[in-house]
């Protein structure tokens, strides 16, 4: 380590990067979302139907081996049918405008896992009507299940639409953390 001393010019120059840190550590600030902006997040996970289910004779065979099955395999219909599951079709309308229309694949290499969805929709603050239509039936002609709800969003408020597996229904979580089941 050198024992030399710095002159005044050296001290000032060495302190110069501090000015850079002074400014760039916090500013300029950035506005990610305008004050009148709010957001709806549709995010849930759902297990869709198996692509093919076993027929009665196969089910009978399956039942006959129940004694040898482990406990988690004994649920009715479990492990009976094809491994892969159907994709989930989803349409999201906001105030009558279609904001999303897509087919979401089940996770897993064999498409045998859960369908995960995470979609963000930026929307102006105010009153809105949201409609979520889903279909995850192996029958391609099956009807969409439709859920609809009106919501009033404040600026910067986030509302989350999630799925309730027990009720097979969607529900809304609003900015004040209140839950509301969406009407079918």
């Amino acid at each position, binding site marked *: *380590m*050198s*024992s*030399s*001393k*710095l*002159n005044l*010019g*050296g*001290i000032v*120059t*060495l*302190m110069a*990067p*501090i000015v*850079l*840190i*002074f400014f*760039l*550590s*916090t*500013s*300029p*600030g*950035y*506005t*990610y*979302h*305008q*004050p009148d*902006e*709010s*957001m709806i*997040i549709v*995010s849930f*996970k759902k297990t869709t139907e198996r692509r093919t289910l076993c027929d009665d004779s196969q089910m009978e065979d399956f039942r006959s081996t129940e004694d040898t099955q482990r406990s988690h395999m004994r649920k009715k219909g479990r492990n009976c049918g094809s491994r892969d599951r159907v994709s989930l079709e989803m349409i999201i309308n906001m105030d009558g405008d279609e904001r999303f229309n897509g087919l979401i694949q089940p*996770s*897993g290499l064999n498409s045998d*896992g*859960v369908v*995960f969805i*995470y979609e963000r929709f930026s929307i102006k603050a105010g009153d809105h009507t949201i409609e979520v239509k889903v279909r995850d039936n192996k029958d391609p002609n099956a009807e969409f299940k439709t859920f609809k709800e009106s919501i009033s969003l404040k600026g*910067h*408020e*986030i509302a*989350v639409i*999630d799925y309730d597996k027990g009720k097979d229904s969607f529900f809304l*979580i*609003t*900015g*004040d*953390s209140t839950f509301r089941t969406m009407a079918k």
Partner: protein
Amino acid sequence: MESENSGVKKEAKAAPRGYKKSNKQVPAILAPGNYLLVRIQEAFNLIFTPAMNPLYYLGAITFLFFWVILGSGAYLYLFYNMSPDGAYESIRYISEDQKYYGGIIRSMHRYASDGIVIVILIHVFQVFFSDRFRQYRWVAWVSGAAILPVIWFEGASGYFLVWDKPAQALAMALSDMMDVLPLNADPVQRNFLTPDHINALLFFVMSYLHLAIPLLLLILAWVHCMRISMPLIHPPKSVTIVILSSLVALALIKPAASGEPANLMELVGSTQVDWFFVGMFPLMHLLDITPLTAWIAGSLFATVFVALPWIVPGPNKSEVERPAFEQAPIEVDNDKCKACVLCQQACPFEAMVVEKFPEGSPTAGRAVVSPEKCSECGFCVNACEFGLVSMGGVNKITMQTYIESLFQPQKGRVTPTSLAFVCERSFNQEGFYSGDRKRLASNEEVASVVIPCVGILSQTIIDASFKAGAKGVFVVDCRPLDCHYREARRRLKLSDDPERQKFHIENMEGDNLKVLSVSPFETEALVKKINEFNEAVKGAKKVDESNMKDGEV
């Protein structure tokens, strides 16, 4: 001499293109950046003096910031609450309820992390444009490239732990980035869906990552320096004091403060941004760059960055002014090796290792050179007092013979009175030499020997110069702390043995031996100084080598 020695230049080469201004031997593609870099370095030399120039201590200053971050982080850790609900409040407590100690420590922690980014960016610029990232230096470059994302993640994880609005914006941006990768079926974004979705373990894991990463950084720093002997890891005391004082001053003037607490049910509006660490995310948002595009661009950049040592072509050797002693692979006559380890001590890149054999063995040991680490600087050639190490056929004995040949009377030429050893990387040498490069163009009385680095000089060579007939020896060096081979003037000081320290050329300086480190842009001033020196020694008697003592001329 020339017929005996394949390493000695036979004819002058054209001046190098692309870097004439500074004579730093860099590839043409780096020349403009190198010119700018050397200009900045020289401006800093005027302000700081070459011995105190912080640009020569960037690695050491990085270590200084690292220790500040580590020390201050240890204190903050004592009070940090690793839960989503308690994290923000614990940081607020440190900043506000311990304003004049915890608050300052938190601010220093934050500003030192910003400082480390600034210093590392300058360090990368300097290393790249001074052509110190290729060949035997590739390990330092690649490990340095690995350090960059780790440093960034360490900083970003620190911002996350505060769990304020900027942290929320960071968490959203990072989870968006991660969800593009086909790693998780369950989107990471769902962890930040509502306050209830945050796993209590998340802050615990992030805290321990934040604590563990410095250990990884230390390992990477060790790899970064592993091929460098005696790396500089401490800046000069006064530089340290000024930097630490600046951090304290900044902490007092602008204490680091948290933003509003994070609320996942509320969008992030206007927020402060630390542009050193998380500036990329506002830019991505502003320019509407998708995470996938960012990954592709980032991966391409990272790949090219890591591969630079193999992508950037070296200087065109045919255009470079070659030294009198050609750089070539090092060879050792191990049959006579005395295992004195002088060559090992002299090597700046730990390329030479001496193995000592047990007593009774035919030889005392052997010196092994690792070609992939060897820079061919020639330090070991002159370190070996027995002339057993050679470079391209040149060893200490043949070098002395070459120097003697310069002072042999030649028809039509005056016999030189003094000798200048010139580091080939020290300054713009265009037009500096005569046609055969054995004399100065401006003064036939001064013989010249262009060398790869003054680190190859030792008392034996200096003595040989006087013995050959030189009345004075002038050594032209580059800035000592900017030596391309790192060790030039301090290499023999590494030894604790005072007898060996005497070989340090600075210790031998006297009326007829001068060592001068020069600015790459001061050719005319240098010529003037050499001529003045030659005039001064011309009247002196020939040095009587029989009266020479070690360390004196």
